């Protein structure tokens, strides 16, 4: 690791100011950034920690659904979202291991937008709103491909607002080494329809499976998926699974998520 300066502002405004400096880099739970720095693959001049800002912490019910501060660790979401949005709490409680969950944050996860991260599937499937220090961004506009988001220079996530569905579940199949999602499917049933968010599988990052959403909106049962096929052409392939295997997982896990949602 190379040397760096460290700032820990206590307000969103101060954080925005600190991040405007040359070579400044936002740090949340550090679960991706710190290992990258330790391998000397990143060397920011200044790390600006976002974990000392009170208004970016915590879980509460408010306008538009469940509000989760961007710097809230997964373990807190797993605990505090449980009675409001159990599927989301389950997802948070299944990320990494206890050490990861006590440091990693929802804001860090969706800002990084790792194609195998869990949270993006929930944000997308819930039709959540990503709130930043500058604006509000609809989930459908926020995720823009591998490690790519709508965030602009100097912009950072401050909270995420999740509409709460009638039924939902997240089912993930672990990559055997990293235990990230080889494929993870979040199914959310709202009064006006079903949304399906898929992580880990797509070669362009998290995506919605539109055919499944249509079928499940008409009939919310696993059997509604039986005639559907996922095209391997859009799937990622690596050491741990071919595109065809991931396409299979998308369908299998979607069915299991529907069953788990009840």
């Amino acid at each position: 690791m190379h040397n760096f300066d460290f700032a820990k502002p206590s307000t969103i405004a101060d954080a925005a100011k600190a991040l405007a400096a040359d070579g400044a880099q936002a740090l949340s739970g550090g679960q991706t950034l710190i290992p990258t720095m330790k391998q000397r693959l990143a060397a920011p001049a200044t790390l600006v920690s976002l974990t000392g800002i009170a208004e970016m912490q915590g879980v509460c019910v408010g306008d538009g659904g469940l509000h989760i501060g961007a710097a809230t660790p997964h373990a807190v979401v797993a605990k505090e979202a449980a009675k409001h949005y159990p599927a989301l709490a389950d997802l948070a409680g299944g990320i990494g291991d206890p050490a990861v969950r006590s440091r990693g944050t929802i804001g860090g996860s969706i800002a990084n937008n790792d194609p195998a991260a869990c949270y993006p599937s929930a944000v997308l499937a819930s039709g959540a709103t990503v709130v930043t220090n500058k604006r509000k961004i609809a989930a459908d506009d926020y995720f823009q491909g591998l490690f790519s988001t709508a965030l602009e220079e100097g912009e950072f996530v401050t909270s995420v607002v999740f509409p709460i569905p009638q039924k939902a579940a997240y089912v993930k199949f672990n990559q055997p080494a990293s235990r990230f999602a080889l494929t993870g499917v979040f199914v959310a049933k709202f009064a006006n329809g079903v949304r399906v968010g898929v992580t880990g599988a797509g070669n362009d990052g998290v995506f919605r499976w539109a055919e499944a959403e249509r079928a499940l909106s008409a009939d919310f049962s696993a059997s509604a998926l039986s005639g559907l096929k996922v095209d391997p052409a859009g799937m990622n392939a690596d050491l741990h699974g071919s595109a065809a295997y991931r396409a299979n997982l998308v369908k299998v896990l979607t069915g299991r998520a529907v069953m788990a949602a009840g």
Partner: protein
Amino acid sequence: MPKDHGIGAPMKRREDVRFLTGRGVYTDDLALHGQAAAVFVRSTVAHGRIKSINPTKAAAMPGVLAIFTGEDFKDVGGNPAGWLINSRDGTPMREPKRPVLAHGKVRHVGDAYAAVIAETLSQAKDAAEQLADDSVIEELPAIVDMKAAVADATNRVHDEIPDNLCFDWGWIEDNRAAVDAAMKAAPHVVTLNLVNNRLVPNAMEPRASIGEYNPGTGDYKLTTTSQNPHLTRLLVAAFVLGIPENKLTVVAPDVGGGFGSKIYHYGEEALVLAAAKKLGRPVRWTAERSESFLTDAHGRDHVTKIELGCTKDGQILAIRTETLANVGAYLSNFSTATPTFLHGTLMAGPYKVPHVYVNVKTVFTNTAPVDAYRGAGRPEATFSLERVIDKMCRELNLDPFEVRRKNLLTPDQFPYTTPVGLVYDTGNYQATLDRAMAMADVAGFDKRAAASKARGKLRGMGLSTWIEACGIAPSHLVGILGSRVGLYDAATVRVNATGNLSVMVGAHSHGQGHETVFAQIVAEKLGVPESSVEIVHGDTSKIPFGMGSYGSRSLAVCGVAVTKAIDKIVAKGKKIAAHMLEASEGDITFEDGKFSVAGTDKAKTFGEIAFSAYVPHNYPLETLEPGLEETAFYDPANFTYPAGAYICEVEVDEGTGKVDVVAFHCADDFGNVMNPMVVEGQVHGGVGQGIGQALCEFTAYDENGQLLTGSYMDYPMPRAEDVPFYNVDYSCQTPCTHNPLGVKGCGEAGAIGSPPAVVNAVIDALHRGGHAHVTHIDMPVSPSRVWQAVNG
């Protein structure tokens, strides 16, 4: 009631107190006055010619003390292979020099070609980055695939070896024609092509070394993560740097696992010693995990074709194998023995097979060196054999349990000379098979399979009846087979004046539990409490010349040396007692810690005898030296042959291809058991590693020789959730006939016996689920591979 101490007692491991409370002292825990840090500059290409290394800028950077390149070591010796293997035509193996730092060429990603020593680690890293930038390495085409390597005479890992072949070994070559004839005549022949997957050892503690040099005395000291400090001393002193052995102390303090990877001498050890001498101050290096992945000697990596000739009712008539074994870029110390004498000699398994022939070609590639990893050759043999027998059962529609029973050697057939050169001294393979079948409730399988089916899972059961040769090794035999060392071990038992004991052993404990178990043996033999016995290991300045720990040898070789030394202590004690009790030596008996005159109540305690030996006021000084300290070396007469039967049950999720091991039963024969708790722990660990190999672990290099599985993001280690609660039994005991403890060794058993049981179970599950076209899946039997096999 089990015993609560002494031989056979399930005593808790004394070393765990310090390990579990963070009080262990590992190499990297040592902070030495004036220490400098070493960082290695490692090749980022798999194969390249070193055109230039310009140290000017790096040398001028803050804190930099010295820079070394291959040029600095070109006149010192290479790190040798420990076994000379001859090819089938009688020519000796090709043995390229393995230098301290790469010189002329780099031959695998991670191959160190320079080292920077600086005041701090951070400064050394900065300068190493600079030095890498100032080095010009012309990339050459990488040689990764073994078949391509031997087919291409132009692209060479070592310029002087045209076909990248180290040797082409036949075992036993004279039997080849007879085996071929038997195979031709067999009513049925089963053929299986398989890959034994390459593994990264992943010891919990990365390798680390500290070199010290005292200019005032000329003494060197190497503190290092070694499984065998004397062997390391021999290699680094006599073969590489030319330091007299008496001027070098090697200390291996607490070592956090090795699994084979820390048997070998590595260039980093020589470098820190050379650097310490140059600077006159301690120089330390600790591998980062990514360096461990790139440079620890890997394991396995065989591509094998096995053929089995048999009768239609499953009597095995002949076995023939052809294997390509990867040795990587350089010959690591045991790399030539592992795929040959630790592999080919086990190819008859526990079976009565008249004809066996093994051919192994070892191949140089631009990958990390490959060497012994827990089991070392024997897992590869067992996997090939147990998988092809399973395939035979499917092809001929035979019961795998009955087929094993039909072919297993029977107790009346020992000692048994195999067609591949070993003499099994004793065993009862039917007994372990019966025991395993009872433990696994084989008869109740269908009911369990039905319950699994109701949960949407396919259930399967797999069997492996395994044998290994361990207690490595009889020196006279391994000498004939090409070993360049002897494989005895040694112990010194020092009785202190106050009656407690320091026992110095040549074996090295890096997780095995020697400190507990050796103390139990001493306590039992001398009738003293374990708490009065200290086991000292890992320091060449303290211990007798021993050969360390690997090959399940610690107890069966070094443990026997301990008992031999104790025998000498007792013999001397009898002489002292005879003098003190005014009796003749022949009338003295020793029991429960007391020397007594037979038939009388006259006795001296062990403590009184010890005191008298060191305060010899009333002592036969004219005929007997004072003191009570004895050393014994023990060279085994034969290998030991633990064996057993493993039964695995799996559930397969057809939707995802995921395999869950839901039950694992081990019935092992380890001969006499010294500490059942330690034995269970060893079996648990070994089976865990075996399940890891079977279901999770693999090492992937791309066509350019880049390691794709170079971190835990992509190298799948087994975790607690991947293994079941093991059902372990060691009640079938046929004591080893040629060592006085009757012990056989248990350290590698689990890793040897388990992989085929797991894979056989998966194939069984798929067949029961109607996927009969799946006859084999290469390890790891990962979810995607299972799914692909079923749906592809």
